């Protein structure tokens, strides 16, 4: 018998090497840059992202709004959000280039409403809710799977740092953000520790049930 940890576990996609091999070289590079911005506020990585995307966003803005100033506002606001909110990007949900597209799409939508109807309020964040909100539910359902007794024993055999993360998130139901704050480490560190721990637990479980 083969036990799958959880079909929708948010780390599945990154663990699955067949998905990784579908990424083009550009995609791998862009993911890497955005991860460096998210985890280390890396200005060089952001500069590379900026040089890659700014001209493309401007071209899209020009095509859509036919005005240089508006197109430049779109570049400015999209890339500002990418810089400031990079930490919200969750690699297991999709490519970095897709995430940047959604940031631009959302800003575009609110901008268009402002131009056409004079509406100032932002609604896009609720039409395309941030993937983070969903993640909480997934963690809950993952917790159900994880709370089996055999798993508890495997958790104890994890390296200390990974064990802490798994316990806090699945057993104490802390969010990854709360935990990062609590431990005084960047969110990316919590995420990567969790990924390692899940991979380890998964292989242990599979060992035991093959």
């Amino acid at each position, binding site marked *: 018998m083969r036990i799958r940890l959880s079909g929708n576990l948010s780390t599945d996609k990154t663990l699955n090497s067949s998905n990784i091999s579908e990424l083009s070289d550009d995609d791998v590079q862009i993911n890497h840059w955005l991860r460096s911005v998210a985890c280390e506020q890396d200005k060089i990585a952001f500069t590379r992202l900026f040089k890659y995307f700014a001209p493309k966003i401007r071209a899209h803005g020009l095509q859509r709004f036919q005005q240089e100033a508006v197109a430049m506002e779109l570049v400015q606001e999209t890339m500002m959000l990418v810089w400031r909110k990079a*930490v919200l990007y969750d690699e297991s949900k999709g490519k970095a280039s897709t995430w940047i597209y959604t940031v631009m799409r959302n800003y575009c939508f609110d901008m268009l409403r402002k131009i056409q109807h004079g509406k100032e309020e932002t609604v896009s964040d609720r039409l395309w809710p941030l993937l983070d909100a969903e993640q909480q539910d997934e963690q809950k359902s993952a917790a159900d799977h994880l709370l089996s007794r055999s798993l508890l024993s495997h958790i104890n055999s994890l390296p200390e740092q990974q064990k802490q993360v798994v316990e806090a998130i699945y057993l104490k139901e802390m969010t990854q953000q709360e935990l990062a704050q609590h431990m005084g480490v960047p969110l990316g560190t919590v995420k990567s520790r969790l990924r390692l721990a899940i991979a380890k637990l998964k292989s242990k479980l599979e060992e035991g049930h093959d």
Partner: protein
Amino acid sequence: MIKFHPSSAMLNDHIAGNLPLSLSVAVSAHIEMCDQCQKAAQKLESSQAEQLWQTGNEEPVDFSDMLHDILAEQPEITCKAPNKPEAMIEVAQQHYRLPVALSIFSDLKWSRLGPVSRARVINNENEVRANLLHIGKGASIARHQHKGYELTLLLDGSFSDEKGSYHKGDFIFLDGAQAHAPYSEKGCLCYVVQNAPLYFVAGVSQVLNPLAGLLY
């Protein structure tokens, strides 16, 4: 089980940000309730992104001031878990939790016509109007058709018409030619978008036509 979904063209427009707000609200709320469309939406997002970024002959522009300004800002190091906005409403003594997209409408003002309650949420987007519509137990709306389209997203409960029965999450798009008379045995709550007034087509209820404005 959800049986009625937005067309793939409409889903595509929603993901591209090209639909009017009234319809995007409906598609977004449907996606929240429908796993199948959620998956399709994610695929569309990634393929649209790929297509858009593909272009390769952008004009060279000097962005260095902009880059400098952005890097002067402080990035967020931890993300506050975005609070999932809770949209709870009460209508006809019943409580409902609405999909996130509908939380953009606050201060709902309900008006009641017999067993039917309505709150207008969009009234100024060209000709389009959107309403929340609550139909009480055992109530029906007289047979009517529309000069434009009528989109109904069933948020809770069920109703039926000549063509069949509809359940929570169903996304029902009728164009102007189709007349129908919805009836709800157990009551239901819908989000309805119309782009032209409805008018009643059957016998006696035609005298109601002056009232049709209340339902649109």
